[in-house]
């Protein structure tokens, strides 16, 4: 089994293999291109947005999509396309950064707990239990008071909440892996713990982690909307996809486009993310090359 080989060359070729395999997965590449497109649009928004995201035309109000406003306007007469473009900047940033925070904390915490096991595992997982149990709403209300109103705080707050489930999942996987022959063999060969975690454990749990990441990003984006609504996070006239959708829900019978377009954009992004995630998972699977 290739992953047993302690030399670095095998690891490199594993990654090269993975990239090559990813390139062959058409759906995954489509996902990658779509995501890249969204990110580029988000980055360029201040220069290419057709209107200002805050200028209102109260007399105009919400009008359906037309030649001037491709996605229509919201109840304040603001161009929806522009607001979605600006909202994407917030949502994509929150999605990626908060998930990254959750990922780093969760994977490290779960891997260490699962790998060391015993009393350390017990203590670490009980800490996770405690954090799960604390009333989230109160936590949020307090965060607002203690730290004021910064958007960075929002990322941190979300990341700090989302890592718990990640840690549990990773720990479960690591516990299962630890007992497998090739890990035991690696211990016999005399690899250090970090080498084992880095070279054998992490690559083998990448599958579930990637799946969970693709699940975390959308829930993080929606959580952002909820927190922003409560006052922690972005403030009007700024917006995000999650906020646009939650306001869209309230007017879905009167002005369906206010729900439809933000919903579509979010869905497309998430689909792209999933195709890419699945492709990555398949490509990184250490055993996949043998199939």
């Amino acid at each position: 089994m290739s992953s047993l080989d302690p030399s670095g060359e095998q690891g490199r070729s594993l990654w090269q293999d993975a990239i090559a395999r990813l390139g062959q997965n058409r759906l995954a590449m489509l996902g990658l291109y779509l995501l890249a497109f969204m990110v580029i649009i988000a980055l360029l928004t201040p220069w290419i947005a057709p209107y200002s995201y805050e200028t209102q035309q109260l007399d105009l109000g919400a009008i359906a999509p037309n030649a001037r406003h491709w996605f229509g306007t919201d109840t304040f007469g603001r161009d929806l396309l522009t607001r979605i473009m600006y909202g994407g900047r917030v949502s994509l940033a929150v999605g990626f950064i908060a998930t990254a925070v959750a990922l780093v904390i969760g994977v490290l915490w779960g891997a260490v707990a699962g790998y060391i096991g015993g009393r350390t595992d017990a203590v670490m997982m009980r800490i996770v239990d405690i954090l799960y149990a604390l009333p989230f709403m109160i936590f949020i209300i307090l965060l607002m008071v203690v730290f004021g109103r910064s958007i960075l705080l929002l990322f941190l707050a979300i990341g700090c909440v989302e890592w718990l489930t990640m840690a549990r999942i990773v720990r479960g996987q690591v516990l299962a892996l630890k007992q497998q022959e090739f890990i035991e063999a690696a211990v016999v060969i005399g690899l250090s713990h970090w080498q084992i975690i880095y070279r054998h454990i992490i690559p083998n749990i990448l599958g579930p982690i990637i799946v969970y990441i693709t699940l975390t990003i959308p829930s993080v984006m929606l959580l952002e909307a909820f927190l922003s609504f409560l006052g922690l996070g972005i403030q009007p006239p700024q917006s995000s996809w999650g906020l646009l959708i939650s306001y869209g829900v309230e007017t879905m019978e009167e002005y369906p486009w206010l729900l439809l377009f933000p919903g579509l954009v979010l869905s497309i992004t998430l689909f792209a993310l999933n195709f890419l995630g699945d492709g990555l998972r398949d490509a990184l699977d250490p055993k996949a090359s043998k199939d």
Partner: protein
Amino acid sequence: MLTSLRCVFIITLLSLLTAACGPMDNNVDTGTAGQILHLGNGSEPPSLDPHLSTAVNSSNIISTLLEGLVTPNPKTLEPEAGAAISWDISADLRTYTFHLNPDGHWSNGEPVEASDFVYAWHRLLMPELAAEYSYQLFVLENAEAFYKGDITDFNQVGVKAIDRLTLQVRLKAPTPYFLSLLSHASTFPVHPETVAAYGDIDDPGNLWTRAGNFVGNGPFILTEWALNRIVRVEKNSHYWDADTVALEEIRFYPIDNLGTEERMFRSKTLHLTVGVPEEKIARYAKDKPELINISPYLGTYFYRFNVNKAPFDDSRVRRALSMSIDRQQIVDAVTKGGQIPTYNLTPANTLGYTAKAAIPFDIPAARQLMAEAGYPQGKGFPVVELLYNTSEGHRKIAIAIQQMWKLALGVEIRLFNQDWKAFLETEKNGDFAIARGGWIGDYVDPNTFLDMFVSNGGNNRTGWSNQKYDQLIQQAGRTAGTDQRFEQFQQAEKILIDDSPIIPIYTYTAIYLKSTDVKGWYNNVLNAHPIKYVYLQRDD
């Protein structure tokens, strides 16, 4: 394992579906046929004790269970006979003698006596009960002193049972709105033996308000109070005017979410709602005007300035901000509920009083004021925050106003929202620049609005203080003649508007959905609907 799970699921689903396939009865049809009124009632009522209830959702229920000395006329709100059949007012306007209805009975059959009112008012004023609405009776002689513990003998307070059916009340000053206070739930009587039977008189956890325990003198009796689910009241046969009461039963549903409530109304689960989601108002007004009710409501929506903090320590800046809001556009394009733009604090025609003072809508003059204050075109104006409590409606208004100020004066205002309790704390600590406010009158009189901004008043919260204003409000409290009294209010309101510690925005409207089956339900500025006149009937 999977197959067994699947079995369980299929069985569950099938049983649910077969159960669901019966014909769907709806509450409105069955209710109208059986005189059962189904209505939305906001969130769960915290208490059904008249002395401890502070919320509208509680008093809606309480006023079906208990009756005060007078009841408001459903159309004009003029006081009419309630527990008292008539009353005399002394020449100095300070002594009221109420003659109780000899037919008045509690729901257990016992007669309602003058001493029951003395007991109830004693309870409301007990310092140990710490009732938030005690101040409703502070117009009585020595009531405030008793409440604050300065005197301990309740006999010195201005309420006395002369005999079984005669109640005498002595006021500390002529109070033209005294009778209208008596239709407020806090002044309702309670049945002394019942209160005593279920706990201490001063214990807010007293269980006398539970269904089965509750004894009242109102048109209905409490038959069910299931937490967050329903409150059910049924017709009280011991009520003195039971013949007038048409409804057999009322069911109050606690519904926190207006969207849910509207869907329940649309599926004929409710006869009446407490509100309408903003975006649905225009739709109903256009397509189904017979179902939507929009009527003026005795309340003002406004913003408070913190006058102790720059830049709002300068009244020119405050006036400029107030003058550059297009209130008409806010009510037309943002709130959309027929609200009335207002340029002063007291709602127009409050007991015949309409303030003459008004802040103009005048952007050039506002720009001029800003320039005089040192901020031409908004240059040098600090970034300040507009604080509001978390709510979709407040958010929208704030967004519109933020933009209006930016365009008119070139000032950048940041929006900031907090949950209700945190908002109150921030406001109390003066930790804000501009904060959202709203005030619903407790009774129909300008005093309930203007009294708010006396120096150090608990509800002032702007830090604003003006001696002349305080004097005028105090004088008006002692003045008997209506014209003279209103003149004092006029002068006071002018001071308030000229100095602008607040930005009045609009006068509230009561907006709700009502089935056409509901009859005997009238509009008035307190949005009060004496339930005994309400009945259900379907037009053919």
